[in-house]
């Protein structure tokens, strides 16, 4: 495991972190309200269930089509990016990605980097790497800026500061931004952020951004955003570095509109985002603005592992809209930080094991009631519950040769496995089932009144004095 990933030990302490949140009525209410708001906004964008279904099927088909020819598309993308004057870099690990980015910074003696919102930069912990190299990396998305000021990580992939109230942000600005008095007027807070950030765009050496879709046939990087900070980050500084996971490539320009429409409607309930940037090269001779250098860093970080397995590959269909977390009853109860991973919520549970290995995420998939809300809203129809079951199996099965995943068997327990074997021995045998359940019905009253986790908020489970089969016999 790379040094940068050492911060991610989600399995450790997950239950304790979750408990802290569920026992905090204020946070519970605040998450519930925020998620309800997003759920309502999305629902308003999809008034027709038939249209939604058609669009989701189209989204799924486009993503599966492109993943089906991913290696060829990546080469085509590289070729066309280079033709357009964009420099392409391949990174297998977060460390490699950071080294590439820091190398570019060093070549330009960069001191200040402004960042548009990028979850992949969070994934590689770029801000830490920059700090260690003496480069000031400044977040310019309002949510990310707030989270950075607070010394935290994003708690949601679309709304990084969704866990914060305006009063908390007001106190934070008052403490951390020089010369700012306390105000919890949201418009004023936004203006304060803008004022600080505007100055930075003008003097930054490097602009960093993510990528929502990379179009192979044209060599174009697409960037979806609402604040204009993405456009400024990618145009004002002399050097633009974009970073993305290798799965974000689509073959055709025609694939962009349906995915874009699904993305903004599912994510924030917007018809279209305020800004949509299509970047197809650095400043050309005779042009008056734009960066003189554009780089793209393509990151693997476990994605090829998911790619190699037909079922797990569906994980890579994700367009990072966050609808699965907004609709998840678990995310709604515990918020994003409890997960301890860059990507929280249902998508986090299925992608993180590939990024971090099952050793660090062995029990993450257990944090789901399998209610299916995530799969129901996913705009590209990722069968998240099915993948969660697969990850449970990969984690809990005994370690074996040629596993599909790094860390397979990390959650293996001889005891738990024997319990399930014993269970199967009883339930596959009508005779044994008959004896065991008969005993249960006769002596059910003797069941302990404390039944572990079950009785923490419920009365003990006791079998009825007569089974249905006994009642049917008596009835004749």
């Amino acid at each position, binding site marked *: 495991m790379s040094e940068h990933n050492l911060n991610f030990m989600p399995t450790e302490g997950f239950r304790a972190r979750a408990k802290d949140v569920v026992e905090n009525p204020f946070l519970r209410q605040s998450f519930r309200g925020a998620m309800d708001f997003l759920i309502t906004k999305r629902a308003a964008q999809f008034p027709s269930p038939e249209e939604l279904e058609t669009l989701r099927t189209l989204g799924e088909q486009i993503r599966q089509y492109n993943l089906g020819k991913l290696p060829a598309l990546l080469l085509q993308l590289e070729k066309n990016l280079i033709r357009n004057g964009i420099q392409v870099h391949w990174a297998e690990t977060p460390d490699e990605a950071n080294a590439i980015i820091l190398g570019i910074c060093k070549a330009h003696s960069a001191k200040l980097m402004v960042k548009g919102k990028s979850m992949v930069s969070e994934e590689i912990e770029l801000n830490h790497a920059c700090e260690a190299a003496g480069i000031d990396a400044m977040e310019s998305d309002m949510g990310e800026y707030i989270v950075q000021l607070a010394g935290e990580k994003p708690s949601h992939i679309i709304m990084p500061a969704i866990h914060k109230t305006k009063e908390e942000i007001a106190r934070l600005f008052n403490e951390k931004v020089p010369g700012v008095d306390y105000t919890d007027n949201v418009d004023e807070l936004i203006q304060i952020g803008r004022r600080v950030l505007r100055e930075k765009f003008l003097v930054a050496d490097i602009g960093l951004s993510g990528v929502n879709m990379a179009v192979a046939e044209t060599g174009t990087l697409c960037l979806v955003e609402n604040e204009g900070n993405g456009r400024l980050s990618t145009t004002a500084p002399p050097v633009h570095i974009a970073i993305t996971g290798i799965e974000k490539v689509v073959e055709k320009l025609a694939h962009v509109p349906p995915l874009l429409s699904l993305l903004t409607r599912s994510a924030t309930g917007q018809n279209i985002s305020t800004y949509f940037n299509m970047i197809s090269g650095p400043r050309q001779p005779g042009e008056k603005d734009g960066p003189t250098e554009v780089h793209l860093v393509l990151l693997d970080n476990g994605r090829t592992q998911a790619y190699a397995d037909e079922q797990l590959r569906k994980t890579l269909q994700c367009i990072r809209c966050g609808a699965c977390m907004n609709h998840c*009853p678990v995310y709604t109860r515990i918020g994003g930080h409890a997960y301890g991973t860059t990507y929280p919520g249902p998508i986090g549970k299925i992608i993180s094991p590939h990024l971090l290995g099952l050793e660090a995420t062995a029990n993450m998939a*257990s944090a*789901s009631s399998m209610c299916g809300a995530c799969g129901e809203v996913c705009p590209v129809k990722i069968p998240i519950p099915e993948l969660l079951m697969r990850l449970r199996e990969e984690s809990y099965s005994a370690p074996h040769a040629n596993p599909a995943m790094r860390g397979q068997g990390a959650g293996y327990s001889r005891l738990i496995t024997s319990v399930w074997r014993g*269970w*199967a021995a*009883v339930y596959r045998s009508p005779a044994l089932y008959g004896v065991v359940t008969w005993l249960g019905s006769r002596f059910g009253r003797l069941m302990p009144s404390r039944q572990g986790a079950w009785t923490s*908020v419920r009365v003990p489970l006791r079998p009825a004095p007569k089974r249905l089969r006994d009642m049917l016999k008596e009835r004749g």
Partner: protein
Amino acid sequence: MSEQAKTSRRPADIYFFATCVVDQFFPGAGLDAITLLEREGIRVHFPEEQTCCGQPAYTSGFPDEARKVATLQLTLFPNDWPVVVPSGSCAGMMKHHYPTLFANDPARKAQAEALSVRIYEFTDFLVNVLGWQPEDRGGDCTVVLHTSCAARREMDVHLTGRKLLGGLNKVKVAQQDHESECCGFGGTFSLKQPEISGAMVEDKLKSLKATGAERVVSADCGCLMNILGHAAWKDKQEGRKTPSPPGEHIASFLLRRTSK
């Protein structure tokens, strides 16, 4: 569908797959469902060897163990009769997951697929196969319906329970907030993540109680075990002697409301 088409599909015989939860914990619900079906003139067959659909192991990441248990159930329904299951969750397992579970075993996969088309969730069977119109014989009453996630999202039968209750003249069906949200049971989830599961069932009970309904009904005993188990725990904590609210399987409620 015309009335005639409905009656022509009306089977003389059906199998009843009770589920292990009903057999052991809610036998009255099973008996009421069978009684109601028999009252409609249907011969109900209860294969004695039935145990469990295998879902607990399947969703917990132990498909081999689930397969062993599912293999037994595959053999229990030899005649071409509908198999009625008083649970959306277990019906979903048998209808939608058995074919996947046996994907690498051609003979059993064929059996699973043949069984799949005959699986009906109880309320779906009443509404869409029998075209059953309940005649309300009870007094004024307000109930709130909880629909399981599997009934809603796997079986797509979330409207049938509501339709049945809507057919009862003197029954008002209350609308809870966050109706489509999970109650937090999730089988082993409730044991592995008790804090989150506990928070979910706490919120679910609050929503149900906030409607002021006298009674909770559901077509899934797994959810009832969780919701009513929490309600009874709360009653005990707060010193109530009567269940607040009481709850039961929709079969029991329907049978009582329509009995002379």
